């Protein structure tokens, strides 16, 4: 009973995605510093729903002391938001996001994901189906069906509120931004939901980049970034999509790749890791990944240029994949700071996940709703009329929560606010 010995054990799951990343488990010293950073631990109050607890379960899988068929293992791994807030709390640098994806991919081999998850991932991996789905969403929104049904209880009502939340709360006129291109050429990841439901934000992204000295150019042939698939453990599909995007952005030839959805940006920055075992693509993936920037990084590097006054009371909520995965906290604040007259209000818990987490809110609606409730209470206390956040999932989740609780606050991408500010400046 020395406390220092343990039986040596070989990996019980050789050749699995978890085995490939399992060295990361050893970095965990069980200090518990991640507990208070974890939204599901704070909400569900069970250490199995904490990073430290889940790492214990992963270790048990690797050591073979729990089988991958164990229902409790599956439950607690499924309940993880994947927000990676534990990574920015971990002194030891445990690569939690990688461990989670490896574990999910391993568990999915034993028992498949729920049908709704598989359906969504199936659609996102196929361009015609995705186009149809987004078109359906736009029609529903234009006919105001989403507005009508956004308050009915249950999942359908929540989905309608999510759709309704994609309407931009800021009015702006189109304007021509002239660029000298001195800051270099940029290709934009137009994305799935962003181009499908937030097309205005994509146009705003291009305009604000141009206004700040970047020359934007298209990157045809690009596809879904694969983040949803990777997070759900469908690493094979994620790799197919990643290769397509690597090729598309190589062809585009721009110096930089701008992404305005932080979940997609985080994924693209990790293409090198995703394709690490693919000799043909690894170097190319790393090269493209090194050119990827969040749109706010590019704008902040340029200042950005201040715009005309836009007197709004705004609270900033950090998307997890921007703050914790990409470790970017300042750039979005710089973007908001360039909007003159904008009052930035402090938001308690802005570093915590809103419960959106990709498709988590559709798969684990109960936990997602409990996590969202905390966020909504903090937003109400902040007194903000606009919640700014740079990821479509967060915009839709928080926006839906605000609509369904009768709040008058609305959501907007930081770039939309800067764009509105520029648009006013361009008015005669």
């Amino acid at each position, binding site marked *: 009973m020395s*406390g220092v010995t343990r039986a040596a054990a070989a990996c019980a799951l050789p050749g699995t995605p978890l085995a490939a990343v399992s060295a990361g488990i050893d970095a965990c*010293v*069980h200090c*518990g510093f991640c507990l208070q950073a974890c939204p599901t631990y704070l909400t569900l109050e069970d*250490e199995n729903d904490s990073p430290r607890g889940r790492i214990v379960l992963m270790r048990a899988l690797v050591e073979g002391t729990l089988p991958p068929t164990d229902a409790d293992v599956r439950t*607690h791994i499924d309940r993880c938001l994947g927000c990676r807030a534990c990574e920015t709390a971990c002194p030891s640098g445990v690569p939690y996001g990688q461990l989670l994806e490896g574990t999910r991919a391993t568990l999915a081999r034993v028992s498949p994901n729920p049908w709704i998850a598989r359906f969504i991932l199936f659609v996102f991996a196929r361009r015609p189906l995705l186009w149809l789905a987004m078109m359906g969403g736009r029609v529903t929104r234009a006919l105001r069906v989403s507005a009508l049904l956004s308050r009915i209880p249950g999942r359908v009502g929540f989905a309608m509120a999510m759709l309704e939340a994609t309407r931009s709360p800021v009015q702006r006129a189109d304007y021509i931004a002239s660029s000298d291109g001195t800051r270099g050429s940029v290709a934009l990841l137009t994305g799935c939901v962003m181009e499908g439901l937030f097309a205005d934000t994509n146009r705003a992204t291009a305009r604000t980049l141009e206004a700040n000295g970047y020359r934007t150019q298209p990157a045809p042939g690009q596809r879904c970034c694969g983040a949803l698939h990777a997070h759900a453990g469908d690493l094979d599909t994620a790799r197919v999509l990643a290769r397509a995007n690597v090729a598309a952005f190589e062809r585009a030839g721009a110096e930089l790749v701008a992404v305005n959805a932080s979940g997609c940006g985080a994924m693209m920055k990790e293409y090198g890791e995703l394709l690490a075992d693919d000799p043909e693509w690894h170097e190319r993936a790393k090269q493209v990944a090194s050119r990827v920037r969040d749109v706010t990084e590019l704008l902040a590097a340029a200042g950005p240029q201040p715009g005309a006054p836009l007197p709004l009371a705004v609270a900033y909520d950090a998307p997890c994949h921007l703050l914790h995965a990409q470790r970017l906290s300042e750039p979005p604040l710089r973007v908001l700071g360039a909007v003159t007259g904008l009052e930035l209000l402090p938001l308690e818990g802005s570093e915590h996940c809103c419960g959106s987490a990709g498709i988590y809110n559709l798969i684990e609606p109960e936990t997602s709703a409990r996590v969202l409730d905390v966020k909504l209470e903090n937003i109400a206390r902040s007194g903000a009329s606009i919640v700014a956040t740079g990821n479509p999932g967060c915009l839709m989740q928080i926006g839906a929560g605000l609509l369904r609780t009768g709040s008058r606050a609305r959501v907007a991408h930081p770039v939309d606010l800067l764009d509105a500010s520029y648009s006013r400046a361009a008015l005669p």
Partner: protein
Amino acid sequence: MSALRSRLAAIVGDDRILTRTGELRSYEADGLPGYQKRPSLAVFPGTRDETVAVVRVLADTGTPYVARGAGTGLSGGALADDVVLLGLHRLKRIISIDRDNARAVVEPGVVNSRLTAETRRFGLHYAPDPSSQTACTIGGNVAENAGGPHCLKYGVTLNHVLALTVILPDGTVVTLGSPNGEQEGYDLLGAFIGSEGCFGVVLDATVRLTRDPAAIRTLLADFSSVDAAAQAVSAIIASGIVAAALEMMDANTIQAVEASIYAAGYPTDAAAILLIELDGPAAGLEDDVARVIQFCRSAGARDVRVASDPADRARLWQGRKKAFGAMGRISPHLVVQDAVVPRTKLPAVLATIQRIATEHRVNVCNVFHAGDGNLHPNIGYNADDPDEAARVHVAMTEMMQACIDAGGSITGEHGIGLDKLQYMDRLFTAPTLEAMCALRAVFDPDRRSNPGKVIPIHSCSEWRAAPSVRAAAVR
């Protein structure tokens, strides 16, 4: 067990009781995962009333149990070996903050740093600041009489708890101490604090809040030898200056921290650094700062710098406080020791520890509260290598013996728990251990609360009087 389970489920709800192997796994270890013990069942009450009802059912059925907060302890103290694990982390309400009298009443599951966060707006803080303060709970702090860097000047948990409402193992609820200060009669509060969960369970704690100092200066001194840093510590202590904190980190620790997200800008080529904090009224503070800088330079410091602003100061402290966690970068497994030696013996004991480490070919990192002579040698190793694990075990034992030989003790703040049981016989005589057993019998005559911890079981002659508990302890 299933009868007990249903009685407990009637109190806390079915989903707040864990019995399956998979879901108990996360509760098999605390912050020292070298020890793993499986609870027979885990129960998580959500309110004070539920906690009282649960403890009474445990009393009624004669069931042994172990209370657990956040599981950040470093002595295996909150491990339940085939007995009930009573998780108190859901009791996380700050019941009241009395700004004028500078005190607060909190439930046991309140996280230490949250109390300071909630009282900061009043210019107050909760002074005991264990390095795990962003995770550990007040209830656990009371059980372990937790310390922390700033306890050098401000005192440990014992000095900051005014009163406790506790439920004794037999289900009686009693108040120890008084929120108004001194109590009359025996100091039962003092006996309870640091009893490592063996005397009962805290239901609420009335704690003292401390006014924020008017001025704070944080210094980072950089040395090219551990010995020089130790000499500087001795000089500062001898001068009579009472630093708010006086911490040392060696080269291995510095490198682990600087590789982490808590990188604080420590010099990575230093053999040792001292983190020194001075606080108090602004008048006279700069004089003390100048004298401390002089002591460091005389001892051979290469450089001494003063934190430029609160953000810089916070960064310097984050690096220190997250150092233990950062050691996971060095090797897959980690043991940490906790011993106190007279401060005048620091240079000699540190040299001995290094000699032992070299002799047994183990990698030791020192990060510790130099101001109170509270050492924390950390040894990183690979537990899957039986030869290395054996060498670590021998080296650890020799290091502890060296501390005892230097007139020190075997724990400064982590507690005895399971990890230090083996050293109790070396430090205390049989009659002293008997006296401790007798004290415990006042609170927990059946030895049901945290069985098998703190006092080696063979030291208690009367333990034979409770056969049911003996059976549980042996099992």
